[in-house]
């Protein structure tokens, strides 16, 4: 028996459940917020830094504030009661109105990073700060109630909290989010906060008004569900969402536009790829990439890293190549068949990260296409000296590497491009820049007005002049792409002093941040246009 007469085992069990729930909620909240905010603000390198920063800052301030609040509230149990009530009410109310708040933030913040920081403070930092006070308050409670030493109690409490975190990561990442969606995570979190509050209410011995915060939380859940429904109805009449799913790798949406007769593949609301209703691509680079490798004979082995909406795999299938596709997102394999009409027979899908595939595969390819840079997330683990050496090892003697790359018209954008070219050259590849958008020189055309420019980097093991190869070229396409028909290659005269990208310094995402920001601003504009009131 303890000092106050309650059985020790029963008290221990309640304490363990309590701390376990707290740890569960901290980690589940972290994953939930990342999934909710990414479609709005993207996931640049700086977003990652600031979200980690705010997470740790919330925990640190929570720990420091606890002794001060313990003195003000007069003890551990009154403070726990306050924390429990504030947590359930604050989280439920902010989540209930999250759509209104986030959509108004889209108008308020022109810089996505500022929007992300304010959203993180509102939805993540404050609940984390409150949650951090729970273990500290419990240590104080054990010290006061059981005369337990702080060292021993802190070991026991933080251990159970970490165990709760493991359960949270596992349940949300592998079960609830992929199989039940984001709304189920909201239900889980509100239920979790309510449960935490009810344990406190039981421990403190609250009799009256115990259910009020739980009823408010349930009402907020209804508000959240109704907001979601009314938001979907605001979509412009010519647009239709034909597929939508949430996951840790981001939300995937297939948007159909009846005016332009095209379907777009959106990753976190960012246009990744688009194709006509017939299944043919509407991106010129797809045809250019197919054209630049069209000198290869039928039956050649080709690898595409990054499936997108499957257009390139389709074009390569038409040329009679044996196509392997590697992608980190398994969901795309089903989407391209169902919504972009690409036959499963056109390619052989391998669910893997490109770098891992290059490390573990010894198959030789006549052409490898890295189509993994369109959008915000740059796979920095692939674009390194060691990474390009592994790609080179997987190329046949006359093999060709094509990298679809985008860079902003900024100093960082030029540095990103110059560094990738330099790193490819250091890896032993002969590199040329190739066009698909009617230019003579990169970053030298006023019509781009500061936007990100796309191009193809061709890397060859041996000096091969593509201009002398027998390309299967559609003359109208070539005329469209190249004002200067004498050369397939683009010049890059504003090249800064490049940096070598290595596994030890994989810093391409840092140079790519501004370009990613431009992508995000474009997707915010498109999002607002799609959901404006008619």
């Amino acid at each position, binding site marked *: 028996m303890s000092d106050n007469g309650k059985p020790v085992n029963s008290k221990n069990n309640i304490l363990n459940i309590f701390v376990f729930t707290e740890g569960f909620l901290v980690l589940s909240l972290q994953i939930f917020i990342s999934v909710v905010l990414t479609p709005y603000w993207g996931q640049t390198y700086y977003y990652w830094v600031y979200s980690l*920063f705010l997470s740790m800052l919330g925990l*640190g301030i929570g720990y420091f504030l606890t002794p001060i609040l313990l003195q003000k509230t007069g003890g551990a149990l009154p403070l726990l009661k306050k924390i429990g009530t504030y947590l359930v009410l604050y989280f439920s109310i902010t989540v209930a109105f999250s759509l209104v708040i986030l959509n108004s933030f889209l108008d308020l913040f022109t810089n996505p990073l500022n929007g992300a920081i304010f959203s993180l403070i509102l939805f993540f930092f404050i609940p984390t700060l409150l949650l951090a006070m729970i273990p500290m308050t419990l240590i104080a409670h054990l010290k006061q109630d059981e005369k337990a030493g*702080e*060292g021993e*109690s*802190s*070991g026991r409490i933080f251990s159970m909290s970490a165990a709760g975190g493991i359960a949270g990561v596992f349940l949300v990442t592998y079960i609830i989010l992929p199989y039940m969606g984001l709304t189920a995570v909201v239900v889980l979190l509100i239920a979790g906060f309510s449960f935490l509050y009810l344990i406190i209410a039981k421990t403190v011995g609250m009799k009256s008004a115990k259910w009020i915060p739980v009823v408010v939380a349930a009402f907020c859940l209804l508000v959240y569900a109704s907001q979601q429904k009314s938001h979907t109805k605001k979509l412009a009449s010519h647009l239709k969402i034909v597929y939508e799913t949430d996951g840790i790798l981001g939300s995937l949406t297939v948007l159909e536009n009846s005016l332009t007769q095209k379907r777009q593949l959106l990753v976190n609301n960012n246009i990744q790829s688009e194709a006509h209703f017939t299944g043919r691509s509407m991106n010129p680079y797809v045809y250019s990439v197919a054209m630049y490798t069209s000198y290869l004979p039928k039956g050649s082995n080709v690898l595409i890293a990054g499936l997108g909406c499957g257009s390139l795999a389709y074009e390569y299938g038409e040329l009679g190549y044996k196509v392997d596709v590697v992608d980190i997102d398994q969901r795309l394999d089903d989407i391209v068949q169902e919504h972009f009409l690409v036959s499963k027979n056109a390619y052989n899908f391998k669910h893997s990260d490109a*770098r891992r595939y290059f490390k573990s595969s010894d198959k030789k390819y006549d052409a490898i296409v890295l189509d993994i840079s369109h959008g915000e997330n740059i796979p920095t683990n692939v674009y390194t000296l060691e990474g390009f050496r592994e790609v080179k090892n997987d190329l046949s003697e006359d093999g060709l590497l094509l990298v679809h790359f985008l860079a902003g018209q900024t100093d960082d954008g030029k540095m990103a491009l110059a560094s990738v070219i330099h790193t490819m050259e250091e890896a032993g590849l002969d590199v040329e820049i190739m066009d698909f958008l009617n230019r003579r020189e990169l970053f030298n055309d006023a019509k781009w007005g500061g936007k990100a420019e796309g191009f193809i980097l061709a890397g060859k093991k041996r000096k091969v002049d593509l201009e002398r190869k027998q390309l299967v070229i559609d003359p109208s396409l070539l005329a469209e792409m190249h004002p200067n028909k004498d050369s397939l290659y683009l010049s890059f005269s504003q090249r800064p002093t490049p940096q070598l990208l290595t596994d030890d310094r994989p810093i391409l995402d840092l140079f790519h941040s501004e370009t990613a920001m431009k992508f995000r601003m474009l997707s915010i504009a498109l999002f607002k246009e799609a959901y404006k009131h008619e």
Partner: protein
Amino acid sequence: MSRVGYIALVLAFIGGGALMMMEIILPKISMIWFGNLLEVWSAMLIGALLAMAIGYRIGGILVKKSRSSRTILAACYLLNAIIFFSLPHFDGIFEFFLGMNTGLGSLLAALIVLLPSIGTLAITSPIIVDYFEKQSEGTNLKASLIFGASTFSGVFVILISGLYLLPQLGISFASTLIAVMLLLNVLLTFLLPKKA
């Protein structure tokens, strides 16, 4: 605050920074081998949490049972200094698990590194709290200061490593720097009494 109190705060600050640096660096190394996959990120997170759960529990028990808390602290920091010094050369561990299923392989590789590093760093926290509680005056909650210092060190490491250290100087330099700081912690533990 007593001399032991200041030492305990410094130990917690450096230890917390090392823990955060491991959480930042290891996924970057793992990405080279297993890629930027959901399974890899989850393995890192679950591995770190598991190491913490075990470490904190052992730390809490050792507070009561160990004869020399100082020796345990010194051993934990020394082990971590060695791990951080050799971290950029851990390729063999990742290569060994490359043939396995991504989720399992990355989790096992992560655990081999994280259990002895984050696990032992977690052991130190309850012991430092114990020193701080018993060697300083006042009735205030001592654990909040120690865990607060450790967490704020994490905040500092995120900013320094995310915005300067890793982009400018690279993973090897960052992990060597942390190893040197941990050696400083080893020396500091000798200024503590044998038992709190």
